[in-house]
Protein backbone atom coordinates (compact mmCIF):
# COMPACT_ATOMS: atom_id res chain seq x y z
CA UNK A 1 0.00 0.00 0.00
CA UNK A 2 1.35 3.41 -0.90
CA UNK A 3 1.77 6.27 1.51
CA UNK A 4 -1.12 8.58 2.41
CA UNK A 5 -0.97 12.21 1.30
CA UNK A 6 0.92 14.41 3.73
CA UNK A 7 -2.12 16.50 4.69
CA UNK A 8 -3.98 13.27 5.50
CA UNK A 9 -1.10 12.03 7.66
CA UNK A 10 -1.07 15.33 9.54
CA UNK A 11 -4.88 15.19 9.94
CA UNK A 12 -4.64 11.72 11.46
CA UNK A 13 -1.91 12.83 13.85
CA UNK A 14 -4.01 15.82 14.90
CA UNK A 15 -7.04 13.56 15.40
CA UNK A 16 -5.01 11.23 17.59
CA UNK A 17 -4.27 14.10 19.96
CA UNK A 18 -7.75 15.67 20.06
CA UNK A 19 -10.45 14.72 22.55
CA UNK A 20 -13.24 15.24 19.99
CA UNK A 21 -14.43 12.20 18.00
CA UNK A 22 -13.05 12.44 14.45
CA UNK A 23 -13.69 10.33 11.36
CA UNK A 24 -11.35 10.58 8.34
CA UNK A 25 -12.17 9.36 4.83
CA UNK A 26 -10.31 9.35 1.52
CA UNK A 27 -11.57 10.92 -1.75
CA UNK A 28 -13.50 7.74 -2.56
CA UNK A 29 -15.32 8.05 0.74
CA UNK A 30 -13.58 5.05 2.26
CA UNK A 31 -13.00 5.32 5.99
CA UNK A 32 -9.27 5.41 6.66
CA UNK A 33 -9.14 6.37 10.33
CA UNK A 34 -11.15 7.27 13.42
CA UNK A 35 -9.71 8.28 16.75
CA UNK A 36 -10.20 6.93 20.26
CA UNK A 37 -12.99 9.35 21.23
CA UNK A 38 -14.85 8.24 18.08
CA UNK A 39 -14.43 4.62 19.12
CA UNK A 40 -16.50 5.34 22.23
CA UNK A 41 -19.36 6.77 20.17
CA UNK A 42 -19.24 4.20 17.39
CA UNK A 43 -19.01 1.35 19.85
CA UNK A 44 -16.03 -0.28 18.21
CA UNK A 45 -12.28 0.11 17.96
CA UNK A 46 -10.42 1.17 14.81
CA UNK A 47 -7.99 -1.66 15.40
CA UNK A 48 -10.95 -4.05 15.10
CA UNK A 49 -12.71 -2.61 12.05
CA UNK A 50 -9.74 -1.16 10.17
CA UNK A 51 -10.50 0.75 6.99
CA UNK A 52 -14.09 0.52 5.68
CA UNK A 53 -15.61 1.22 2.25
CA UNK A 54 -18.12 4.09 2.09
CA UNK A 55 -20.95 1.66 1.36
CA UNK A 56 -20.26 -0.04 4.71
CA UNK A 57 -19.70 2.85 7.11
CA UNK A 58 -22.60 4.89 5.71
CA UNK A 59 -25.06 2.13 6.66
CA UNK A 60 -23.40 0.00 9.36
CA UNK A 61 -24.28 2.52 12.07
CA UNK A 62 -27.93 2.68 10.91
CA UNK A 63 -28.33 6.47 10.91
CA UNK A 64 -31.91 7.56 11.58
CA UNK A 65 -33.62 10.92 12.04
CA UNK A 66 -35.69 12.07 15.02
CA UNK A 67 -38.75 10.32 13.63
CA UNK A 68 -36.87 7.05 13.34
CA UNK A 69 -36.66 7.15 9.55
CA UNK A 70 -33.41 5.90 7.97
CA UNK A 71 -31.20 8.68 6.59
CA UNK A 72 -30.00 7.86 3.08
CA UNK A 73 -26.21 8.03 2.66
CA UNK A 74 -26.40 11.07 0.36
CA UNK A 75 -27.91 13.12 3.23
CA UNK A 76 -25.14 12.35 5.72
CA UNK A 77 -22.86 15.37 6.38
CA UNK A 78 -19.67 13.55 5.44
CA UNK A 79 -21.15 12.32 2.16
CA UNK A 80 -22.29 15.88 1.35
CA UNK A 81 -18.79 17.17 2.15
CA UNK A 82 -17.31 14.57 -0.18
CA UNK A 83 -19.72 14.90 -3.08
CA UNK A 84 -20.42 18.63 -2.97
CA UNK A 85 -17.05 19.77 -1.56
CA UNK A 86 -18.71 21.97 1.02
CA UNK A 87 -19.19 21.84 4.81
CA UNK A 88 -22.31 20.18 6.19
CA UNK A 89 -23.92 19.77 9.60
CA UNK A 90 -26.66 17.49 10.97
CA UNK A 91 -28.08 16.03 14.17
CA UNK A 92 -29.22 12.42 14.00
CA UNK A 93 -29.15 9.03 15.75
CA UNK A 94 -26.85 6.10 15.15
CA UNK A 95 -26.68 2.58 16.49
CA UNK A 96 -23.12 1.82 17.59
CA UNK A 97 -21.64 -1.59 16.92
CA UNK A 98 -22.07 -2.20 20.66
CA UNK A 99 -25.85 -1.97 20.02
CA UNK A 100 -26.38 1.34 21.84
CA UNK A 101 -28.43 4.12 20.22
CA UNK A 102 -26.73 7.52 20.46
CA UNK A 103 -27.80 10.97 19.33
CA UNK A 104 -24.91 12.73 17.65
CA UNK A 105 -24.24 16.14 16.14
CA UNK A 106 -21.89 16.01 13.16
CA UNK A 107 -19.93 18.68 11.31
CA UNK A 108 -18.13 17.53 8.17
CA UNK A 109 -15.88 19.37 5.73
CA UNK A 110 -13.87 18.44 2.66
CA UNK A 111 -10.10 18.18 2.96
CA UNK A 112 -8.46 20.34 0.30
CA UNK A 113 -4.67 20.21 0.14
CA UNK A 114 -1.98 22.34 -1.44
CA UNK A 115 -2.50 23.03 -5.15
CA UNK A 116 -6.24 22.45 -4.64
CA UNK A 117 -5.86 18.69 -4.33
CA UNK A 118 -9.06 17.04 -3.08
CA UNK A 119 -7.92 14.60 -0.42
CA UNK A 120 -11.11 13.37 1.23
CA UNK A 121 -13.15 14.60 4.17
CA UNK A 122 -13.26 14.90 7.92
CA UNK A 123 -16.25 14.55 10.24
CA UNK A 124 -16.14 15.85 13.80
CA UNK A 125 -18.99 14.71 15.97
CA UNK A 126 -20.34 15.03 19.45
CA UNK A 127 -22.63 12.74 21.36
CA UNK A 128 -25.62 14.68 22.66
CA UNK A 129 -26.14 13.60 26.24
CA UNK A 130 -28.51 16.32 27.48
CA UNK A 131 -31.00 18.52 25.70
Amino acid at each position, binding site marked *: *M*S*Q*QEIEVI*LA*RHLAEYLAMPIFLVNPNGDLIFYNEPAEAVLGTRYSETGAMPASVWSTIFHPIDHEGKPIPPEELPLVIALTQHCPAHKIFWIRGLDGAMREIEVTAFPLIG*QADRFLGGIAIFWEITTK
Partner: protein
Amino acid sequence: MKVTFWGTRGSLASPSPETVRYGGNTSCVAVVGSEGTMIILDAGTGIRNLGQSLPADLKRVHILLTHLHMDHIQGLPFFAPLRRRGVEFHIWGPASTTLSLNARLQKYLSPPLFPVSVRDLSADLHFHELPAHLIEIGEFSINAQLIIHPNPTLGYRIACAKSVVTYIPDHEPALSNRVYPFEKEWTSGYDLAKGADLLIHDAQFTDEEYQYCVGFGHSTIRDAFRFAELTGVKQLVPFHYNPSYSDDDLDRMFDEALTELHPTYKMTPSREGLSLDVV
Protein backbone atom coordinates in the same frame (compact mmCIF):
# COMPACT_ATOMS: atom_id res chain seq x y z
CA MET B 1 24.40 9.45 -11.28
CA LYS B 2 27.07 11.51 -9.63
CA VAL B 3 26.02 13.38 -6.50
CA THR B 4 28.19 16.23 -5.22
CA PHE B 5 27.65 18.13 -1.98
CA TRP B 6 28.24 21.91 -2.08
CA GLY B 7 26.50 22.78 1.18
CA THR B 8 25.50 20.42 3.99
CA ARG B 9 24.60 22.74 6.85
CA GLY B 10 21.08 23.60 8.00
CA SER B 11 19.51 26.84 9.19
CA LEU B 12 22.54 29.14 9.00
CA ALA B 13 25.92 29.13 7.30
CA SER B 14 28.55 28.35 9.91
CA PRO B 15 32.10 28.74 8.55
CA SER B 16 34.71 28.30 11.25
CA PRO B 17 37.86 26.31 11.96
CA GLU B 18 35.63 23.77 13.75
CA THR B 19 33.44 23.09 10.66
CA VAL B 20 35.99 22.77 7.87
CA ARG B 21 35.60 19.00 7.37
CA TYR B 22 31.80 18.76 7.15
CA GLY B 23 31.49 22.30 5.81
CA GLY B 24 29.75 25.51 6.78
CA ASN B 25 27.63 26.29 3.71
CA THR B 26 23.88 25.68 3.66
CA SER B 27 22.01 23.18 1.50
CA CYS B 28 23.08 22.66 -2.08
CA VAL B 29 23.61 19.38 -3.94
CA ALA B 30 24.38 18.80 -7.62
CA VAL B 31 23.25 15.64 -9.39
CA VAL B 32 24.70 14.79 -12.81
CA GLY B 33 23.29 12.00 -14.93
CA SER B 34 25.01 9.58 -17.29
CA GLU B 35 24.18 11.80 -20.27
CA GLY B 36 25.51 14.92 -18.59
CA THR B 37 22.29 16.53 -17.46
CA MET B 38 22.75 18.42 -14.20
CA ILE B 39 20.11 19.33 -11.67
CA ILE B 40 20.77 21.41 -8.58
CA LEU B 41 18.96 20.65 -5.35
CA ASP B 42 18.38 23.81 -3.32
CA ALA B 43 20.17 27.11 -3.49
CA GLY B 44 21.72 27.58 -0.06
CA THR B 45 25.03 29.37 0.29
CA GLY B 46 26.83 26.36 -1.17
CA ILE B 47 25.49 27.20 -4.63
CA ARG B 48 27.94 30.10 -4.97
CA ASN B 49 30.94 27.76 -5.17
CA LEU B 50 29.02 25.43 -7.48
CA GLY B 51 28.33 28.34 -9.84
CA GLN B 52 32.00 29.19 -10.02
CA SER B 53 32.84 25.62 -11.00
CA LEU B 54 30.48 25.50 -13.99
CA PRO B 55 31.63 26.13 -17.57
CA ALA B 56 31.08 29.61 -19.01
CA ASP B 57 29.18 28.23 -21.99
CA LEU B 58 26.49 26.65 -19.81
CA LYS B 59 23.16 26.84 -21.67
CA ARG B 60 20.56 25.47 -19.27
CA VAL B 61 20.22 25.15 -15.49
CA HIS B 62 17.54 23.39 -13.42
CA ILE B 63 17.28 24.25 -9.73
CA LEU B 64 14.82 22.20 -7.65
CA LEU B 65 13.94 24.03 -4.44
CA THR B 66 12.46 22.00 -1.62
CA HIS B 67 11.04 25.13 0.03
CA LEU B 68 11.76 28.80 0.44
CA HIS B 69 13.32 29.02 3.89
CA MET B 70 16.40 31.24 3.75
CA ASP B 71 18.96 28.48 4.19
CA HIS B 72 17.70 26.96 0.93
CA ILE B 73 17.58 30.11 -1.24
CA GLN B 74 20.13 32.51 0.19
CA GLY B 75 22.80 31.64 -2.35
CA LEU B 76 20.56 32.10 -5.39
CA PRO B 77 21.56 35.68 -6.29
CA PHE B 78 25.22 34.72 -5.91
CA PHE B 79 24.94 31.91 -8.46
CA ALA B 80 27.01 33.27 -11.36
CA PRO B 81 25.00 31.74 -14.27
CA LEU B 82 21.97 33.80 -13.19
CA ARG B 83 23.80 36.92 -14.31
CA ARG B 84 24.67 35.57 -17.77
CA ARG B 85 22.58 36.36 -20.83
CA GLY B 86 21.42 33.39 -22.84
CA VAL B 87 21.31 30.91 -19.97
CA GLU B 88 17.94 29.16 -19.78
CA PHE B 89 17.13 28.95 -16.10
CA HIS B 90 14.39 26.74 -14.66
CA ILE B 91 13.45 27.11 -11.00
CA TRP B 92 11.13 24.46 -9.58
CA GLY B 93 9.54 24.76 -6.15
CA PRO B 94 6.44 24.23 -4.02
CA ALA B 95 3.16 25.82 -4.99
CA SER B 96 1.34 28.14 -2.63
CA THR B 97 -2.35 28.90 -2.32
CA THR B 98 -1.67 32.63 -2.40
CA LEU B 99 1.45 33.76 -4.29
CA SER B 100 3.35 32.41 -7.27
CA LEU B 101 6.81 30.92 -6.80
CA ASN B 102 8.29 33.94 -8.57
CA ALA B 103 6.44 36.37 -6.29
CA ARG B 104 7.53 34.53 -3.16
CA LEU B 105 11.17 34.51 -4.24
CA GLN B 106 10.93 38.23 -4.96
CA LYS B 107 10.20 38.83 -1.30
CA TYR B 108 13.87 38.01 -0.72
CA LEU B 109 15.22 39.20 -4.06
CA SER B 110 14.09 42.79 -3.70
CA PRO B 111 14.96 45.83 -1.55
CA PRO B 112 15.35 46.27 1.34
CA LEU B 113 16.41 42.64 1.88
CA PHE B 114 18.52 42.51 -1.28
CA PRO B 115 19.58 45.25 -3.71
CA VAL B 116 19.03 43.25 -6.92
CA SER B 117 15.54 42.18 -7.96
CA VAL B 118 14.55 39.14 -10.01
CA ARG B 119 13.89 41.24 -13.13
CA ASP B 120 17.44 42.59 -13.00
CA LEU B 121 18.92 39.13 -13.49
CA SER B 122 20.18 38.46 -17.01
CA ALA B 123 19.30 34.79 -17.38
CA ASP B 124 16.12 33.64 -19.11
CA LEU B 125 14.04 32.64 -16.07
CA HIS B 126 11.24 30.07 -15.97
CA PHE B 127 9.33 29.15 -12.78
CA HIS B 128 7.55 25.83 -12.24
CA GLU B 129 5.32 24.97 -9.29
CA LEU B 130 5.08 21.52 -7.73
CA PRO B 131 3.75 18.99 -6.99
CA ALA B 132 2.03 18.85 -10.35
CA HIS B 133 3.21 15.82 -12.26
CA LEU B 134 6.21 13.62 -12.82
CA ILE B 135 8.98 15.91 -14.06
CA GLU B 136 11.19 14.75 -16.90
CA ILE B 137 14.52 16.57 -17.09
CA GLY B 138 16.98 15.00 -19.52
CA GLU B 139 17.62 11.43 -18.42
CA PHE B 140 15.95 12.04 -15.03
CA SER B 141 12.39 11.26 -13.95
CA ILE B 142 11.63 13.25 -10.83
CA ASN B 143 8.78 12.81 -8.40
CA ALA B 144 8.08 15.69 -6.00
CA GLN B 145 5.88 15.19 -2.96
CA LEU B 146 5.00 17.29 0.06
CA ILE B 147 6.60 16.17 3.32
CA ILE B 148 6.30 17.23 6.96
CA HIS B 149 8.10 20.54 7.50
CA PRO B 150 6.62 23.97 8.32
CA ASN B 151 5.31 25.76 5.22
CA PRO B 152 4.78 23.67 2.08
CA THR B 153 7.96 21.69 1.57
CA LEU B 154 8.86 19.10 -1.03
CA GLY B 155 11.06 16.07 -1.12
CA TYR B 156 12.40 14.75 -4.43
CA ARG B 157 12.84 11.24 -5.76
CA ILE B 158 15.24 11.41 -8.70
CA ALA B 159 15.37 8.33 -10.89
CA CYS B 160 17.37 7.45 -13.95
CA ALA B 161 17.66 4.16 -15.78
CA LYS B 162 19.79 2.43 -13.16
CA SER B 163 19.46 4.23 -9.86
CA VAL B 164 17.36 6.36 -7.52
CA VAL B 165 18.44 9.26 -5.31
CA THR B 166 16.03 10.71 -2.74
CA TYR B 167 16.54 14.19 -1.31
CA ILE B 168 14.62 15.15 1.85
CA PRO B 169 16.79 17.75 3.58
CA ASP B 170 14.19 19.17 5.98
CA HIS B 171 11.85 16.57 7.41
CA GLU B 172 10.20 15.63 10.69
CA PRO B 173 8.53 12.27 10.02
CA ALA B 174 8.44 11.56 13.75
CA LEU B 175 6.23 14.59 14.42
CA SER B 176 3.41 13.62 16.77
CA ASN B 177 4.02 9.91 16.32
CA ARG B 178 3.66 8.29 19.71
CA VAL B 179 5.74 5.45 18.35
CA TYR B 180 8.34 6.06 15.64
CA PRO B 181 8.94 4.58 13.17
CA PHE B 182 5.25 4.03 12.50
CA GLU B 183 3.33 2.19 9.75
CA LYS B 184 4.79 2.84 6.30
CA GLU B 185 1.42 3.98 4.95
CA TRP B 186 1.29 6.73 7.56
CA THR B 187 4.93 7.87 7.39
CA SER B 188 5.78 11.13 5.64
CA GLY B 189 8.27 10.67 2.83
CA TYR B 190 7.93 6.90 2.62
CA ASP B 191 7.00 6.77 -1.08
CA LEU B 192 9.84 9.13 -1.95
CA ALA B 193 12.50 7.12 -0.18
CA LYS B 194 11.29 3.53 -0.59
CA GLY B 195 14.17 1.35 -1.79
CA ALA B 196 16.31 4.30 -2.94
CA ASP B 197 19.97 3.67 -3.71
CA LEU B 198 20.88 6.88 -1.90
CA LEU B 199 18.84 8.83 0.66
CA ILE B 200 19.97 12.34 1.58
CA HIS B 201 18.07 13.13 4.78
CA ASP B 202 17.72 15.70 7.52
CA ALA B 203 19.85 14.95 10.61
CA GLN B 204 19.63 18.25 12.45
CA PHE B 205 19.18 17.39 16.10
CA THR B 206 20.34 15.18 18.92
CA ASP B 207 17.65 13.36 20.89
CA GLU B 208 18.19 15.78 23.79
CA GLU B 209 17.75 18.87 21.61
CA TYR B 210 14.67 17.47 19.91
CA GLN B 211 12.70 17.56 23.17
CA TYR B 212 12.76 21.36 22.90
CA CYS B 213 12.36 21.52 19.14
CA VAL B 214 9.32 19.34 18.37
CA GLY B 215 7.46 20.88 15.44
CA PHE B 216 10.47 22.76 14.08
CA GLY B 217 10.38 20.36 11.12
CA HIS B 218 13.61 18.45 11.60
CA SER B 219 14.84 14.98 12.47
CA THR B 220 17.24 13.69 15.02
CA ILE B 221 20.22 11.78 13.73
CA ARG B 222 18.72 8.60 15.16
CA ASP B 223 15.35 9.26 13.51
CA ALA B 224 17.13 9.71 10.19
CA PHE B 225 18.68 6.27 10.74
CA ARG B 226 15.28 4.79 11.62
CA PHE B 227 13.64 6.36 8.56
CA ALA B 228 16.34 4.85 6.35
CA GLU B 229 15.72 1.43 7.92
CA LEU B 230 11.93 1.72 7.46
CA THR B 231 12.23 2.74 3.81
CA GLY B 232 14.81 0.07 2.93
CA VAL B 233 17.36 2.35 1.31
CA LYS B 234 20.81 1.10 0.35
CA GLN B 235 22.73 4.12 1.60
CA LEU B 236 21.91 6.95 4.00
CA VAL B 237 23.61 10.32 3.75
CA PRO B 238 22.79 12.44 6.84
CA PHE B 239 22.49 16.12 5.90
CA HIS B 240 21.38 19.57 7.08
CA TYR B 241 23.50 19.68 10.21
CA ASN B 242 22.74 22.00 13.08
CA PRO B 243 25.06 25.02 12.67
CA SER B 244 26.20 24.71 16.27
CA TYR B 245 27.82 21.30 15.71
CA SER B 246 31.57 21.14 15.22
CA ASP B 247 33.25 18.46 13.13
CA ASP B 248 34.20 16.63 16.32
CA ASP B 249 30.59 16.80 17.57
CA LEU B 250 29.34 15.23 14.35
CA ASP B 251 32.01 12.51 14.41
CA ARG B 252 30.92 11.57 17.92
CA MET B 253 27.19 11.63 17.10
CA PHE B 254 27.58 9.38 14.09
CA ASP B 255 29.76 6.96 16.06
CA GLU B 256 27.13 6.76 18.81
CA ALA B 257 24.26 6.25 16.36
CA LEU B 258 26.15 3.52 14.49
CA THR B 259 27.02 1.72 17.71
CA GLU B 260 23.47 1.85 19.00
CA LEU B 261 21.43 1.20 15.86
CA HIS B 262 23.60 -1.14 13.76
CA PRO B 263 22.12 -0.07 10.42
CA THR B 264 21.69 -2.66 7.69
CA TYR B 265 22.51 -0.05 5.04
CA LYS B 266 25.64 1.92 4.34
CA MET B 267 25.90 5.29 6.13
CA THR B 268 28.03 8.08 4.66
CA PRO B 269 27.85 11.48 6.36
CA SER B 270 27.55 14.34 3.91
CA ARG B 271 30.36 16.88 3.80
CA GLU B 272 31.19 19.70 1.47
CA GLY B 273 33.15 18.46 -1.53
CA LEU B 274 32.00 14.86 -1.18
CA SER B 275 31.09 13.20 -4.49
CA LEU B 276 29.27 9.88 -4.63
CA ASP B 277 28.72 7.72 -7.69
CA VAL B 278 25.31 6.07 -7.45
CA VAL B 279 24.95 3.05 -9.71
